[in-house]
């Protein structure tokens, strides 16, 4: 089937949307609410003109004989007004926002040159008290959720794009209230208590959903000369740190940057993975039971805890690699070098949001990739001038292959090879659910089960940059 876009004849596949055709042919259409695979058509910014009418390109399928324009006066008017309306409802605190310069709404506003705010009344224009109350009324339903260790939520910055509603594997979010009062909320407005996979944080276009951290305290610890800051670098991070800061193209550069930030020692988390693999192998060997579940995905542990408590006993009693390694640093390493463990601050640079909840004392902080980016921006580092460096001594990784643990199936494969037993792997909550249901009905008999909540494993973790 052929359609015309901007007077160009383009071939299309059946069932494709206009947006997909444009994307394939390099025609840029701005959008806010859509993400890969899920387009609801609520932001009304991706509109295109077809036969004089404005239609959303993201959820309109192509049909024969369509003639579409992606730029016209009408289209830019629609985009401008809708963006301005969104902007008027937005807090407008860009400078202090966590997502400053990384915000899709901000980028769109820059792109479309939104500069006037003619939807918001000015204070001096109003003589009436009632009208001032009206201004406040728009802010009256703001929900701030700081009641959990992983995700901070503030609806003041929310643009109601529904990405989090759609991406959430356990459907924790929904719209509360109606019309202008709509906020993204949890059932009964309770603090978020989910499996903290962090996919919502990763996909949020603004600063409404961010992962929680006390950056000020971390900076304080880094600058404290009496304390020794230790960074554990997760191999998964390397793939996405480039997206956050394009200058950091290699491990060496990343280590250099971390040292410039104030970390005294930078270790490879691969060592922790080796430790974890060893411990898990030991645990599997000594356990006579079958259907043992690997425990290195904190989000999966939470999922079982919350929704499938009957399988709690199947999960191996081995802490996650970062935790094991932090323990090694604070005990063995500190003793060897005669350092007071109290003076060591272990910070994991990770792609995992759930690890923030899964800490048990040794691991002090978990920094995600985009938080690392924020830290770099806060510190105003001149990245071009920083030289490459190597990992600190001690904790050398013996077998590079053990780093495959960050990919779905990596750990199970290695363990199964070593112990010569069968294994099953799953990624993403729908798959995990079906496996657990099968398990419940006794349809699966195997030795090792590996489940990772983020699709594809830690490489697509919630803490990665996009």
């Amino acid at each position, binding site marked *: 089937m052929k359609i015309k876009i901007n007077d160009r004849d383009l071939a299309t596949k059946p069932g494709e949307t206009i947006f997909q055709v444009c994307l394939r042919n390099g025609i840029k259409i701005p959008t806010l609410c859509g993400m890969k695979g899920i387009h*609801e*058509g*609520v*932001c*009304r*910014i991706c*509109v295109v003109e077809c036969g004089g009418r*404005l239609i959303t390109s993201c*959820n309109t*399928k192509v049909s024969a004989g369509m003639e579409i324009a992606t730029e016209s006066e*009408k289209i830019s*008017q*629609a985009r401008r*007004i*809708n963006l*301005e*309306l*969104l902007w*008027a*409802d937005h807090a407008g605190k860009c400078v202090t926002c966590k997502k400053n310069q990384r915000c899709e709404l901000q980028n769109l506003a820059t792109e479309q040159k939104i500069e006037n705010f*003619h*939807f918001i*009344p000015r204070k001096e*224009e*109003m*003589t*009436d008290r*009632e*009208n001032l109350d*009206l201004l406040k009324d*728009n802010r009256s339903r703001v929900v701030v959720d700081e009641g959990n260790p992983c995700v901070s939520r503030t609806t003041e910055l929310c*643009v*109601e794009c529904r990405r989090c509603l759609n991406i959430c594997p356990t459907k924790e979010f*929904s*719209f509360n*209230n*109606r*019309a*202008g*009062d*709509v906020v993204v909320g949890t059932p009964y407005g309770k603090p978020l208590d989910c499996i903290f996979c962090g996919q919502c944080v990763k996909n949020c276009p603004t600063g409404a959903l961010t992962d929680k951290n006390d950056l000020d305290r971390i900076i304080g610890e880094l600058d404290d000369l009496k304390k020794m800051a230790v960074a554990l670098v997760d191999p998964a991070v390397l793939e996405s740190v480039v997206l956050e800061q394009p200058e950091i193209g290699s491990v060496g550069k990343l280590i250099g940057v971390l040292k410039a930030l104030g970390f005294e020692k930078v270790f490879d988390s691969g060592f922790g993975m080796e430790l974890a693999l060893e411990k898990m192998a030991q645990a599997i060997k000594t356990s006579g039971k079958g259907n043992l579940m690997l425990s290195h995905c904190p989000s999966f542990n939470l999922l079982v805890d919350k929704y499938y408590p009957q399988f709690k006993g199947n999960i191996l009693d081995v802490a996650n690699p970062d935790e094991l390694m932090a323990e090694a640093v604070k005990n063995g390493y500190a003793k060897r070098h005669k350092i007071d463990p109290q003076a060591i601050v272990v910070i994991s640079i990770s792609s995992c949001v759930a690890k923030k909840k899964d800490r048990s004392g040794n691991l002090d902080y978990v920094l995600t990739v985009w938080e690392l980016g924020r830290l770099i921006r806060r510190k105003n580092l001149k990245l071009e001038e920083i030289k490459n460096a190597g990992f600190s001594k001690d904790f050398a990784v013996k077998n590079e292959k053990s780093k495959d643990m960050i990919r779905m199936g990596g750990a199970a494969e290695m363990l199964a090879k070593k112990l010569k037993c069968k294994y099953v792997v799953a990624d993403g909550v729908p798959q995990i659910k079906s496996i657990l249901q099968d398990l419940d009905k006794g349809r699966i008999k195997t030795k090792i089960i590996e489940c990772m909540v983020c699709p594809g494993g830690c490489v697509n973790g919630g803490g990665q940059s996009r």
Partner: protein
Amino acid sequence: MKKETKIITKNWGRINPGRIDDYIAAGGYRALRKFVAEMAPQSVLEEIKISGLCGRGGAGFPTGRKLECVALEKSKEKYFICNLDESEPGTYKDRSIVDNDPHMLLEGIIIGALTVGARKAFIYINGNYQKEIEILERAVEQAQEKNFLGENILGSKYGLEMEIFAGAGAYVCGEETALLNSIEGNRGEPKARPPYPTQCGLFGRPTAINNAETIANIPWIVENGGKAYAKIGSKKSPGTKLFIVNGSVKNSDVFEAPLGIKLGDLIGKCAGGIQPGKEFWFAQVGGSSGRLALEKDLKLKLEYDCEAKIPLGSGAVLVVDKTADIHELLLSWTGFFRRESCGKCVPCREGTFRLWEIAKRLRDGEVSERDVAAIRDILWTLNNTTFCPLGKFAATAFGDALENFQNEIYRISK
């Protein structure tokens, strides 16, 4: 003047709505007997198509075509839904049907559902209609006792289960896809179309959704034939319609009149004209979402016609006299849509809110230059870019008022 044909209101005031026997004595359920005994679903569809009956909820989509779409779908399960989520301000025609003659509605639903091959029918009723829910519950019980509902209806192979589903009184749930979402247990907000409900509706099954008044016409059509129905009313949209006339008229009430009646006749003859001492200013046709008809528009015919200058909508007519305060009216319209927007898409959620803010400032006489531009922008984006028709409705009356009464709204002295 010709003798007026009454279709929907023929039993009103004559029978006790709580007694099924009264309805049967007045000739009720004859159409269902005829359908069961001698008609195939196909022939009922033909009759409805010939009759030219179209949707009375506001859009005026041909009912025959809609039912045919569902009937042609090959699916084991199909649903038939009666839309009684009447929440348009000043509209109470469907409620009046239930209040006066609930069994006529039930008979229509039963015939409609069996025609499309559904074995389950829903009545989606506005949750604020407590009294009507009770009336319908009793009526369904009585119909089951008489074997008009349930398995083997009147000894035939047909079977139908009926459920009364009370919504929470949201305006947007009158929209088909939002209504489906509401029954499915989701948040009441519209879904993207296509797929249309006739192909993929309730729980993913083909579903026919019709307004209560539309359905109440079906027994008459089955009994008297589509040709007889097509003779009533105007050519473009045959039949009669319930009109609700409110505002500055002598008797505001529900009137049944043939489609194609002139607006002036409806106000002057049916409703007894303007109240003494008052002067006609304009009339709003079709509830809060309706357009404004001025003095010169009184000769226009009221009918379902996509090119009509004044769309009929739900059939509510609000007559406004010259003592009315246009600013209060604007505030009431915008306040309604600000409250009833579901909040899904940007222009409707933010636009209706800003429009309401501006309407408040208009009332207080604090409107600025920038507001004038903002009104223009908001009305434009509501008209052109919203997800469902609600956004468009929100802009209709405001836009019309602005066009016609600009001087009054901006307090410009001539």
